[in-house]
């Protein structure tokens, strides 16, 4: 799989290990730290631009989605309770692991339609993105929170806290960069996540699961599913154990539907488009304000 002579190391790049094993590889979902096929048994073929099958991917079902939310919820207190320093270290480790997989990932992006240069740029940008957010983990509290000067004898402090379990519907275009740009900020500030990446460009996002699996990220903190947003998005928006939703990757019509469904448990819903800004992480944070008298 990481064979340096495999696709991508030479042109033309093809990610399929078909040459060595004689059949296209099946990419699996990443849920609760395990690589799983869909419980539904659904497998979809991914084609290159010429229409040939280059790989197969497990297509997530609603049950997989529920399992992923359960895994994310289970991992949430531990991840939120980890020190920001540790979270930063682990995010940086993701960047390092990503760097080590850059050849394979670029080849997979290329196989799904990106130009060679665009694929390489996208991987580089994704690595930068994880490094950028790794550095924010122990700084964002100082930027978004602070001491409030109230008119009375009180110490009054506001601190941003992770919202909880976030659902991320990531874009099909530039799938690795899109995924990184919303997953990194969500994890950076202590949320756990369920990602739904579109099927057509799912190779790099699923390989990214292997990056996460080798990055000291606790099981269940990030869960990667691929499937149709139209299929899975409504279930994510309806789910009462999902606290926030990023809908950067969905169509306008679907966005409207997901927003309406989010009313059930009043999820926070944002389309951050992965903007590199503390405000992006702010969409996955709730400010907590603590008062205490400061008088004898």
């Amino acid at each position, binding site marked *: 799989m990481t064979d340096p002579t495999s696709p991508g190391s030479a042109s033309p790049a093809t990610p399929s290990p078909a040459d060595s094993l004689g059949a296209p590889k099946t990419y699996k979902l990443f849920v609760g730290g395990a690589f799983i096929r869909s419980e539904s048994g659904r497998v979809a073929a991914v084609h290159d631009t010429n229409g040939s099958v280059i790989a197969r991917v497990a297509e997530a079902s609603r049950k997989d989605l529920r399992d992923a939310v359960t895994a994310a919820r289970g991992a949430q207190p531990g991840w939120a309770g980890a020190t920001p320093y540790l979270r930063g270290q682990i995010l940086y480790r993701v960047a390092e692991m990503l760097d080590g997989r850059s050849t394979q990932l670029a080849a997979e992006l290329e196989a799904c339609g990106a130009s060679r240069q665009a694929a390489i740029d996208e991987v580089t940008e994704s690595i930068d993105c994880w490094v950028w957010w790794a550095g924010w983990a122990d700084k964002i509290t100082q*930027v*978004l929170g*602070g001491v*409030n*000067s*109230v*008119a*009375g004898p*009180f110490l*009054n402090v*506001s601190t941003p*806290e992770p*919202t909880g379990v976030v659902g991320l519907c990531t874009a099909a275009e530039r799938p690795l960069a899109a995924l990184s740009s919303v997953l990194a900020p969500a994890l950076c500030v202590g949320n756990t996540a369920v990602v739904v990446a579109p099927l057509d460009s799912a190779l790099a996002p699923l390989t990214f699961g292997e990056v996460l699996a080798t990055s000291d990220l606790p099981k269940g903190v990030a869960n990667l599913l691929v499937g149709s947003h139209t299929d899975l998005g409504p279930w994510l928006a309806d789910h009462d154990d999902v*606290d926030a939703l990023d809908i950067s990757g969905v169509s306008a019509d679907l966005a*409207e*539907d997901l*927003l*309406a469904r*989010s*009313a*059930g*448990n*009043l999820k*926070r819903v944002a389309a951050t488009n992965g903007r590199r*800004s*503390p*405000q992006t992480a*702010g969409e996955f944070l*709730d*400010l*907590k*304000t*603590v*008062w*205490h*008298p400061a008088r004898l």
Partner: protein
Amino acid sequence: MNENATSNMTGTTGGAGTTGVAGVAKRFTEYAPALESRSIVTIRSEYGLWIAGEERDAEAGAAFDSVDPATGQHLTRIAEASQADVDAAVAAARSAYENVWRDMAPANRARYLFRIARLIQERAREFAVLESIDGGKPIRESRDVDVPLAAAHFFYYAGWADKLPWAFTGGVIPRPLGVAAQIIPWNFPLMMAAWKLAPALACGNTVVLKPAETTSLTALLLTEVLTEAELPPGVVNIVTGGASTGAALAGHRGIDKVAFTGSTEVGRSIRRATATTGARLTLELGGKSAQIVFEDAPMDQAIEGVVRGIWFNQGHVCCAGSRLLLQESIAEEFSERLQRRVEGLKVGDPLDKNTDIGAINSAEQLEKIEELCEVALSEGARMYRSSATLPAQGWYCAPTIFSGVDTSHRITNEEVFGPVLAQMTFRTPAEAVAKANATPYGLAAGVWTDNGAKILWMSQQLRAGVVWANSYNQFDPASPFGGMRESGFGREGGRSGLDSYVTLEDAS
């Protein structure tokens, strides 16, 4: 005590003439009524809508009655805005946004807000009396909390108006959103208007504000202040009315932003409505906040804090500390002393400066409160209710405590929005956290203990937007307020209160 409450209401004093032990006890608890004069307030027989700086009748001529909850008597008649009126208000706000307010020098916007703050301060007594007459809250609270905080809020955000570039990091330019629809509740009418208007205007937005049906009068009095401050016409518009007016406003296509404070149920419907229109949304909704008292808490202070937490404003407070969690070792003593303290609370005329608990805001709300109390009794809870005598007219509810409840009872899960406390016990801090967080809400919490580490640990564990440690129900314009989970999203107050009213453009 009962006689005293009665005598207070009827205006006769019996204290001086009483003798014997009971009489001595009485003299200590009895006060002559100290009524705030109504004469400072003029309530007209009719009020119109306020659109583009002018008062006007509702297009269809519709109007509704407003009632004094302390007596049940008719106060005035107020125009009820229809869809057409809401259209007119939104159009006026749009025009003012595009032609005046958006592009005004920020320092000038600040001037208007400073002026509004000053004018509210100058007319503070008038606002306080009117607030108590219209909504039923004790004059002490409207005078000492609602009105000063309303003025302070305008003053605070006035200062932000020309400093927005420093409020946001990372090379972004904050821009106003456009026209904001703001729908506010009946529990803190003027203060909520200030919480909504001040940050919206400071950021360069214009507003259509809808006060609650039962408490429109201070918002309408505020129009006099806005006029006196020479705020350009259309920058603020006020549409009065009930649920249909609110729905017309929240779902309006010409709105860029909706800010709502009220029930979680209505909040959900507004979320659905704005999904279609694409307006940005912030919600400040219900709560079932826990007050946690540890055995090492200073008990007298904790009792005062619990009283303030649930009996402030008749319990009509979204962040009311409506669940009391007592550590088992002190539960009995605390409960007994709390009840003794509650016996001293005076329920009565909102305009009496001795009144602790005023009138329930409406007959409908009183019915809801009593219904939930009946459910609690039928589910096996034990009820303590203060023996305070209630005025014969108007809507009142004596302070009430339910014990013997568990986490499955409706009284421990549903927001009562009245002077009703549900009391439970716990053994360990972890159990206190589990019980406090066992609600879909997440607005506020109170922690009472003398142990610093315990305060900090508890504060971290509690899922609540505001944690009052060894304090409760403190508010300040510089302090962000708002909920987690189903208590809504967005913050009001502080720098973060600006987030709800700007969009950030990349500077490059």
